[in-house]
């Protein structure tokens, strides 16, 4: 069985938005949209679920905070409680203000870096990864909508040309 897809190219983000809305109205599944820059509201028009990246960042931040508390407590209070310049080290709380800068920075460090790494993993981006753009023009000034064909090639083509596509290509995907 052949995996045929149709690539509709647009040269304006407003036309693309309208096209996405029209295609969605017909209850046709859009495989993907490639754009050279973020188009405000495109994710909403395509009905994509909201990202959970912020939630992971919050949890990573809590991890960093816990790590900082554990680290300062272990090093400064449990392991070797030296008198350093008269700072109280009888308990973690007594010396807590001195640990706050570390606690803050580690919270931010964990939240930021782990969130970025999560983003890379979820988006499948890494060095030497082969680029996946179906048409080189989509990184410059064209917008591309990809829809899978299920025995409805002509119908799809006419719908897409109605939406103002400047070019419609049918492509065999492997």
């Amino acid at each position, binding site marked *: 069985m052949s995996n045929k897809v149709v690539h509709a190219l647009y040269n304006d983000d407003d036309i693309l938005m309208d096209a996405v809305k029209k295609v969605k109205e017909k209850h046709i599944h859009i495989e993907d949209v490639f754009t050279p820059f973020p188009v405000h509201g495109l994710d909403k028009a395509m009905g994509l679920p909201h990202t959970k990246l*912020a939630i992971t960042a*919050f949890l990573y931040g809590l991890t960093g905070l816990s790590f900082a508390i554990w680290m300062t407590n272990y090093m400064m209070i449990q392991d070797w409680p030296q008198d350093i310049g*008269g700072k*109280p080290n*009888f308990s973690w709380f*007594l010396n807590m*203000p*001195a640990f*706050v800068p570390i606690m803050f920075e580690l919270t931010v460090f964990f939240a930021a870096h782990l969130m970025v790494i999560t983003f890379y993993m979820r988006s499948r981006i890494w060095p030497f990864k082969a680029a996946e753009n179906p048409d080189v023009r989509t990184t410059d000034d064209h917008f591309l909508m990809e829809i899978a064909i299920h025995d409805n090639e002509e119908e799809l083509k006419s719908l897409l040309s109605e939406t103002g596509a400047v070019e419609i290509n049918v492509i065999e995907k492997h």
Partner: protein
Amino acid sequence: MYQFSGKLKTIALALMVLGAVGIISGFLSTPSSVEEVKEQLHHAQNAHGGHGEAKVEHHEATDAHADHHTEASHDTHGHDAHGHADEAHHEAAPSHGEEAHGDSHAEHVFHQLKNRPWAALYVACMFFFGVTLLVLAFNAIQRVAQAGWSIVLFRVMEGITGNLLPVTIILLVLLLLGSAHVHHLFVWMAPGTVDPTAANYDAIIDGKSWWLNVPGWTIRAIVYIAGWNIYRHLSRKASLAQDNATDLVNYTKNFKMSVAFLAFFLFTESMMSWDWIMSLDPHWFSTLFGWYVLATFLVSAVTVIAMVTVYLQSKGHLEYVNDSHIHDLAKFMFGFSVFWTYLWFSQFMLIWYADMPEETTYFVQRFEEYKLPFLLMIPMNFIFPILVLINSDYKRIPNFVIGAGVVVLLGHYTDVFIMIMPATVGGEWFFGLPEIGAILFFLGLFIYSVFTSISKAPLLAKGNPFLHESETFHY
């Protein structure tokens, strides 16, 4: 046009009457002589089996005293908690313990008890004044930044600044009563502090007398208050005139005025915080104090804007305000809460870390005598708003904004309380009738003057060039 409902007006007036009753009862319950205080102290001593401290509320402070010697410099504490205002109270510092129930101690307590109703009034007045002033500044920032989202809220902000004139008049009267020696909140004003031959001569205060002197201080107070009120009057006038104008002359004028005001405001706000709050502890100084005071009032001001907006919106008066506007206000509440915490902690931590006696006494006293409200500020002003307002969806729900706002406002009232009370009543503090009465009085005054002011103009600032952007604003 918004109509100030009769019900709300009644509530406001009732709050003011109730508040006035509380304030007056505070003044009536102060002891009239040192003898009376001695009597009370004597009773308390017998009742509690010769406890180190005299009053019932002192249990906490006494325990804290014993527990936290490790943290604080011993000698400094003894001097500060019991002797910091002595210069003004015509006494040599008694050593704590030996002479605790002697005449000097009774007189010290007498002065603190006499200060309490004044301080309660001053804290509430300062809080509501600061909130109103910062709403004015926030509005000026929105104008200068040519913000596109907040135009539909301009009349709300302008309405809130309607409270500026009444509250600054009361504040000015309170301050002038101080320079007229009717009350003794400002110890450096006491006669003899700058006279080398006097018994209560204070070399440190004398060294600062080029800035801290009654005539200069009074003139500065009048200049600050006049400057803010003049800008408020002119800006409001230009804003109303822009409504029906065919050109942008008033808009441009308002822009330029706001730039000038913000420059004036940043200097006067800083000096105001030295004059009216920091000088209550004339031996102590902190460089970021002005910013810290600014932050506490700024977050309260944004919270008040959000709460008044949500109220008016729930009554159907703000048709162009959508949940994106509320979201933006909530983001400011969140951000400024963190900003306050940053400045509060920076001031605390630098002083705690270096632990220099002349600076540390400020926090030692607050930590030992005001432990509960001092520590309560961290959850109220930082942890709670952070957790409630971090979620983008919650920031759009009016009830969450109101809920967080109530806690934030109470927390920042506590902050002002902790700035002012330790220097004026010391360990004799209590959150009772005078304090609650003063809050209710100024809350009533606030509601009355704010909603009167809002009802005087249409709720949409029509002539603003960014109005359309603001009406269709969505995030």
